[in-house]
């Protein structure tokens, strides 16, 4: 499996997706740093590039680098599940280049056109102004087509292979809601309460249901690959995970319905179910420790192993602990919509998804290059710097967020003046400064990570086109 000869065409595409994803990860960090700088020096790049467009780039690209990494992960891992190449690879390649062109066009629009008059046309061509799905509708159409083709690649292959394993069944069934929920990226409902009600289906059911299931399935595939874990065990565990995640996460959506006009019963339902969400994540930590203890002797890919482990811990800390802190309605009333939220958002996305996809990328560069062993020092530096940076940012934002919740929300009554006063308290300012410093550390970690991945790809036994991770000269099937 690790021999270069056996690279499937979907795996070649996977390497392209990983290249794109790592590049987008870098773009996202640049805009995160700019936004963090504007908190300290509001005149930075103002008004040429005001905070709203910077944040738009940061969070829109966040979704994209993770989504493209998910595509890459499945394109990489699935052929061995199906024991054949994926179908529809020609269309999938077209989608890849369509994505690249669309992302570039949207980025240029966001940076240079930015906004437009309050008409439907603006929403189609320039900006939809809805968090995480800011891309103009034409681009959202491209993304929807891309996801649809991807769903076809997977389901079509299952049909062609006449073979559905438990893991692939989970992936296939999960792709349907994942795609369906994206349709919420299109409407522009006049009524903000209804708009937010459905928008949370997209945001919450992506990150706390469908993505959680998807990353669970990906980790299951990785475990079978790097640890030779037995299929029945891995599948049983995946079903348990899915059962618990859905049992708590579906009604857990109520933690977003406390204050947007919805009825009061969501305070109880949302608080209760979302407060249970950490428990399955704790189970995953136990599982990670168990696997580490049982299988570590077979480790040929240290970075993939450690990033997988961290995915379990990071998911528990970022989503479980940080989410739990603010999920009861009595507390959320004050913490809601502050830097505290941002603190949780960063740690949760990083822990649950960032770490997970990085581990698959390490696995892919190893297998693509036919390396017996991946190790060395660089990946450790990347690991250390990225995590110091991220947990440092999370801690800084927690301090800033607590100060904001306390002074603005609890004492000040959330007026304009209360907002401004809270932003100028020493606690808040120190938190915001520290976030910037840790952001630089994170950025340094990213540089090492990208350098390390490129170096491993270059060292592969086959010729590699300069500057890309794609293995061009490998034999095909």
């Amino acid at each position, binding site marked *: 499996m690790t021999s270069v000869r056996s690279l499937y065409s979907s795996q070649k595409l996977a390497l392209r997706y990983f290249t794109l994803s790592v590049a987008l990860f870098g773009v996202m960090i640049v805009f995160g740093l700019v*936004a963090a700088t504007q908190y300290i020096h509001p005149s930075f790049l103002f008004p040429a590039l005001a905070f*709203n467009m910077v944040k738009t780039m940061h969070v829109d690209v966040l979704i994209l680098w993770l989504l493209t990494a998910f595509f890459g992960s499945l394109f990489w891992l699935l052929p061995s599940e199906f024991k054949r190449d994926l179908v529809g690879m020609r269309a999938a390649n077209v989608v890849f280049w369509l994505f690249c062109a669309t992302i570039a066009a949207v980025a240029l629009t966001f940076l240079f056109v930015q906004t437009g008059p309050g008409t439907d046309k603006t929403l189609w061509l320039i900006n939809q102004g809805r968090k995480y799905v800011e891309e103009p509708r034409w681009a959202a159409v491209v993304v929807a087509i891309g996801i649809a083709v991807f769903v076809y690649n997977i389901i079509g292959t299952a049909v062609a292979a006449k073979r559905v394993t438990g893991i692939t069944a989970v992936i296939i069934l999960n792709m349907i809601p994942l795609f369906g929920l994206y349709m919420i990226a299109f409407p522009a409902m006049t009524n903000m309460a209804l708009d937010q009600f459905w928008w949370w289906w997209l945001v919450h059911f992506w990150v706390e249901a469908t993505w959680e299931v998807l990353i669970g399935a990906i980790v299951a595939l990785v475990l079978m690959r790097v640890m030779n874990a037995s299929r029945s065990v891995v599948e049983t565990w995946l079903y348990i995970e899915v059962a618990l995640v859905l049992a708590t996460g*579906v009604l857990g959506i109520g933690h977003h319905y406390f204050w947007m*006009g919805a009825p009061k019963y969501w*305070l109880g339902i949302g608080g209760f179910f979302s407060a249970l969400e950490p428990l399955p994540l704790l189970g995953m930590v136990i599982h990670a420790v168990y696997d580490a203890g049982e299988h570590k002797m077979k480790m040929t890919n240290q970075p993939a192993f450690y990033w997988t482990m961290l995915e379990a811990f990071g998911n528990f800390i970022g989503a479980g602990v940080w989410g739990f802190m603010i999920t009861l309605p009595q507390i959320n009333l004050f913490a809601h919509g502050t830097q505290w939220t941002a603190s949780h958002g960063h740690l949760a996305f990083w822990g649950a998804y960032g770490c997970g996809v990085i581990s698959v990328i390490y696995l892919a560069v190893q297998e693509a290059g036919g390396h017996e062993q991946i190790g060395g020092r660089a990946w450790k530096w990347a690991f250390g710097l990225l995590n110091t940076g991220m947990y440092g940012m999370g801690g800084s934002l927690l301090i800033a967020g607590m100060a904001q919740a306390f002074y603005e929300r609890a004492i000040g009554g959330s007026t304009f003046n209360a907002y401004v006063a809270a932003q100028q308290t020493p606690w808040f300012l120190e938190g915001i400064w520290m976030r910037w410093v840790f952001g630089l550390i994170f950025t340094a970690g990213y540089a090492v990570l990208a350098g390390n991945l490129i170096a491993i790809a270059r060292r592969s036994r086959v010729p590699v086109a300069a500057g890309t991770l794609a293995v061009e000269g490998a034999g095909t099937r």
Partner: protein
Amino acid sequence: MYTRDPIFWRAGAASSLIVMVAILIALTINTIGVISVGGANVPPYTVINQAIGYVDDDSQHEYVPTISGSDPLFGHVYDERQATALIHEGKLVIQSRACLECHSVFGTGAYFAPDLTKSWLDPVWRQMWEPMTQTHTRADAMVAFLMHPDKYPTWTREMPNLHLTRDEAQAVVAYLKWTSSINTNGFPFGFQADPDTPNGKQAAVNR
């Protein structure tokens, strides 16, 4: 043992999904009724013709919006069709200018600028922006500010000039007046509103 059988857990996953989604759908149907325009928590758009407030309701231990007497916006009384069109335009402006990539409404959005849920009722319009913009009503002060935020900087962070036309600015103001009338279960807590006063009383109470 059955707990070690994948089939058992597969059935468990499927049934927990079905049960939870069934409950979710039932609650969703109910919630949609409550949050649709004219539902229990979300007043019709014509509420912009009325005086809005936000008070601490002792019986519920939370802050609730109040709607009383008439208080026309920009001196107009909007009928239902006009109000709907105005609010619709307001929403389009809010999206097309990416307002919620700095601000938030109902606490959702970004955190670089204040939450706008009750912005209509914020005392700061009267205290700071009416004198600054040389206007005499909150609505006019908001329009003046929204059209040229760069002319009225208030602190280190400035709002960029997003080139709103007067119509667009008025639509946004109407939108914010409407959101301030929505019952949000007491969020934001402790907001000391500068309530609208029904027409006749205005002079006596406020000036």
